[in-house]
């Protein structure tokens, strides 16, 4: 489904991804952990080609997204739902319009069909009553749930989450995680950058620890969290697990 091969990414002299490779199978939930600055967010942004890379390939269903241009690039991107740390809802659109924008303009759905699909998705994330609210009228947790609905609206093959709960107040984290849990149980292929261990243990098939732009260790959640093999993983976990 998603295959990353020997990815190299640098910003000027700063090497962020340093020959990173891994694969995510259909229906798999991969949780990516790592220290701040270890390249987790950059990795996700390279996977949907928001950032160009210096070397390496990213295959989405067999197509190298970094070789695609124009409409092809947009088409491949629409197969990858992306949820951002800071939501990035379109502030001039209502919740429902946020969800229907891409289906209307990319998939050329009629407004009625898009609205119907949008409402179903807002119900799925538990926010049908907020359909006509603007992002500024929603709480952080609600915004993130709308953002998830927006990403789902394009019926992506894989969903990527870039620290989706890191910008949330503690009492709102659960409502977002619940939506993500539900999504994972429905069989969605997911790549999640998150340090929510409960979430990882509940649904992740694998946890991948990256450091200095490289995969240090990959394994089942309990193994990586409680019996890490690599000293760098141990050091990192000792800092986040209290």
């Amino acid at each position, binding site marked *: 489904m998603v295959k990353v091969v020997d990815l190299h990414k640098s910003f000027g002299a700063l090497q962020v991804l340093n020959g990173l490779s891994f694969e995510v199978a259909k229906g798999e939930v991969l949780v990516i952990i790592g220290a701040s600055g270890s390249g987790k967010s950059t990795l996700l942004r390279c996977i*949907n080609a928001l950032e160009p890379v210096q070397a390496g390939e990213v295959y989405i269903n067999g197509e190298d997204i970094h070789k695609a241009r124009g409409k092809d690039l947009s088409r491949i991107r629409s197969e990858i739902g992306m949820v951002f740390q800071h939501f*990035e809802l379109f*502030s*001039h659109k209502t919740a429902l319009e946020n969800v229907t924008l891409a289906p209307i303009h*990319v998939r050329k759905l009629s407004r009625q069909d898009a609205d119907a699909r949008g409402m179903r998705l807002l119900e799925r994330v538990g926010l049908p009553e907020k359909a006509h609210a*603007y*992002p500024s009228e929603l709480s952080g947790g609600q915004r993130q749930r709308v953002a998830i609905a927006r990403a789902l609206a394009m019926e992506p093959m894989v969903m990527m989450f870039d620290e989706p709960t890191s910008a949330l107040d503690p009492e709102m984290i659960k409502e977002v995680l619940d939506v993500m849990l539900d999504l994972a149980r429905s069989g969605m292929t997911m790549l999640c950058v998150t340090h929510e261990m409960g979430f990882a243990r509940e649904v992740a098939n694998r946890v991948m620890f990256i450091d200095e732009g490289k995969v240090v260790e990959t394994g089942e959640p309990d193994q990586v969290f409680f019996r890490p093999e690599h000293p760098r993983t141990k050091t990192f976990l000792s800092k986040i697990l209290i």
Partner: protein
Amino acid sequence: MLRDIGLFDPLRWQRVWPYMPNYIQGLGTTLVLSIAALLLATAIGIIAGVMRLSKRPYVSAIATVYVEVIRNTPLLVQLFIVYFGFAPLWKGNSFLPMAVGLSMFAGAYVAEIVRAGIQSISKGQTEAALSCGLTSAQAMMLVVLPQALRRIAPALAGQFISLIKDSSLVAVFGYTELTFAARKVTAATFLGLHPYMLAAVFYLLLCYPLSLVVRAIERRTRRIG
């Protein structure tokens, strides 16, 4: 000395009064010219503003040259160039060169406002749009520009107010708008002060409500944030 000026002399104001139809007509012309120039300037400004942010160096260079040339030369000189320099284009029409001259001028300022507006929208908005499968052009048209335009609406309205005032310069070319009407009244009545005072009042009546509208827009769109 103040008596010599006669600002409050009813007799002098009486001499101006019969020319009210000229003022009304001039006001109408000023309004039509300003609105036409505003629409054209907005179009030019959006295009040039987007071009300035283009990743292609020659595209942004063209827009930069346009903006800098316009902003660093006097409007009156620009109007002379457009009016006389391109005279064959206008085929005797006096509205076109004035509207084009004014909108080329205002367009450069609108371009800078648009550029600042686009830059004020976070990059994350574009990235979210691209992630949904929109093309860069769609991301600009559907996500970034609408938010940028809303944010710069007050600045654009301020620019419109400037445009109305700048349009008085076309009186130099004998174009019968508000200022030229005042000039004609001065010629007919030999009064230097009162005709222009009246013109100023009309400009004020035109521009001040616009300032109030700007404030109302700001309040109304605050909800969307």
